[in-house]
């Protein structure tokens, strides 16, 4: 045991000599011993002959805990485990910085959203006639305020998503998700925009999609952004095809439109933050150039792939292949 380990564990080399790891410390997650498939972590390292690396807590003999980035490896000699090595680093300070980052995003989001909520609810109330009759001209103006405010809300939400990505405060909370219901709810939310442009949506997915254990928030963000782009960048009476399939261990998503397409010169910049294609700059679309950057970041985080095919003035198809395990709760990373 080196000096750093003695300092973190609060034990001297002399005290630790001839003791087992369990006599010195415990490896915990959420105040309970870490178990892999129901077995204690150290036993699993030896039995499975694998390396386990993760951020956990080391509970010292005095009862206090220290957050650590830890890696536990077996020492294998001619196929027999003869011992093990535990390497860990105190990440208390990193955790504190993460907390500060997270609190900052919380505060900013709260302060930015509060005035937008007031405008949102007031315009809704006025348009519904809750505060008395409004004439058609007034209605038109209030509707414009409401639409602009919604665009601002969407921009703030996108900026907050980007902040979470860039500050690396992503967390994954996987739960059983009814995929059909999820996709249907996204389309339902866009129904006004779809009907306003008389677009025809072809659905290539069925209830047989079933229930998948995945973080619905991220899958929703991916599909929502792709569908919203297809609506924005397709002229009236166009078509949108949405395909969702489970392909082996992957969730396959394809969103095709008969829209403006992406000019050849812009193809390489599609996933760049704040990118807007040249051919839509003069059109009345309300994109903010963050959607595809967010989608790409989530897909990369999950270890998936995103690609597209586009022909200017014909349309664009975005494809996503998302490993379902990539958006499950992060398990100890096992290296064979």
């Amino acid at each position, binding site marked *: 045991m080196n000096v750093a380990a003695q300092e973190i564990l609060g034990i001297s080399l002399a005290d630790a000599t001839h003791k087992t790891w369990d006599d010195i410390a415990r490896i915990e997650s959420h105040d309970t011993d870490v178990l892999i498939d129901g077995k204690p972590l150290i036993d699993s390292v030896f039995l499975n002959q694998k390396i386990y690396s993760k951020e956990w807590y080391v509970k010292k003999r005095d009862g206090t805990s220290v957050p650590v980035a830890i890696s536990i490896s077996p020492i294998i000699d001619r196929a027999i485990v003869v011992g093990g090595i535990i390497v860990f680093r105190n990440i208390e300070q990193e955790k504190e910085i993460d907390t500060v980052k*997270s609190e900052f*995003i*919380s505060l900013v*989001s*709260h302060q930015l*959203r*509060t005035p*937008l*909520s*007031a405008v*949102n*609810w*007031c315009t*809704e*109330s006025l348009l*519904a006639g*809750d*505060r008395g009759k409004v004439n058609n001209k007034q209605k038109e103006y209030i509707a414009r305020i409401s639409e602009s405010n919604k665009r601002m*809300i969407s921009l*703030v*939400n996108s900026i*907050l998503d980007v902040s*979470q990505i860039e500050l690396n*405060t992503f*967390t994954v*909370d996987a739960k059983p998700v009814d995929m059909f219901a999820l996709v249907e709810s996204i389309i339902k939310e866009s129904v006004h925009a779809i009907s306003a442009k008389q677009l025809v949506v072809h659905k290539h997915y069925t209830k047989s999609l079933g229930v998948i254990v995945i973080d619905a*928030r991220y899958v929703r963000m991916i599909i929502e952004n792709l569908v919203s782009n297809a609506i924005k960048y397709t002229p009236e009476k166009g078509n949108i095809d949405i395909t969702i399939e489970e392909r082996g261990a992957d969730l396959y998503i394809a969103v095709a439109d008969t829209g403006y397409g992406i000019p050849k010169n812009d193809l390489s910049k599609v996933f760049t933050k704040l990118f807007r294609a040249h051919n839509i700059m003069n059109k009345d679309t309300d994109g903010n150039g963050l959607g595809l950057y967010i989608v790409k970041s989530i897909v990369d985080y999950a270890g998936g792939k995103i690609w597209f095919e586009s022909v200017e003035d014909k349309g664009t198809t975005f494809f996503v292949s998302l490993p379902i395990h990539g958006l499950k709760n992060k398990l100890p990373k096992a290296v064979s």
Partner: protein
Amino acid sequence: MSVVKKTKKQTTGPTVLVAEDDEFLSRVLVDKLEKEKFNVVTVFDGDAVIPALTSGSVNLVILDIIMPKKTGFDVIDEIKANPATKDIPILLLSNLGQESDIARAKEKGVHDYFVKSNISLAAVIEKVRSYIHA
């Protein structure tokens, strides 16, 4: 001193408690609830929630998180710890929208969580109705 206000027009409909410190936002929400025939009790800080709940028959709580005196999270703990109030549905409406905030609220047992800027008044009413079957 915490202030508790009751709706002007008592109806036979269910009662909703609105705990929201922004007086203007509170008024807009209360107007909508009253228009939809709910009785409304309003409070403007965290301390006032439990007294308001225990002194009347409230069917649902709409709760903000960032409030003076006590946060919405602490208020949820109090509601859940009190046998007289623990079964009252709680709908959190806050402009905090981080996953950690949502997860924390759900772990504490709120029925739903919505980011205020992302939900319409009509959708709030729909949710309230769905939880109290009004």
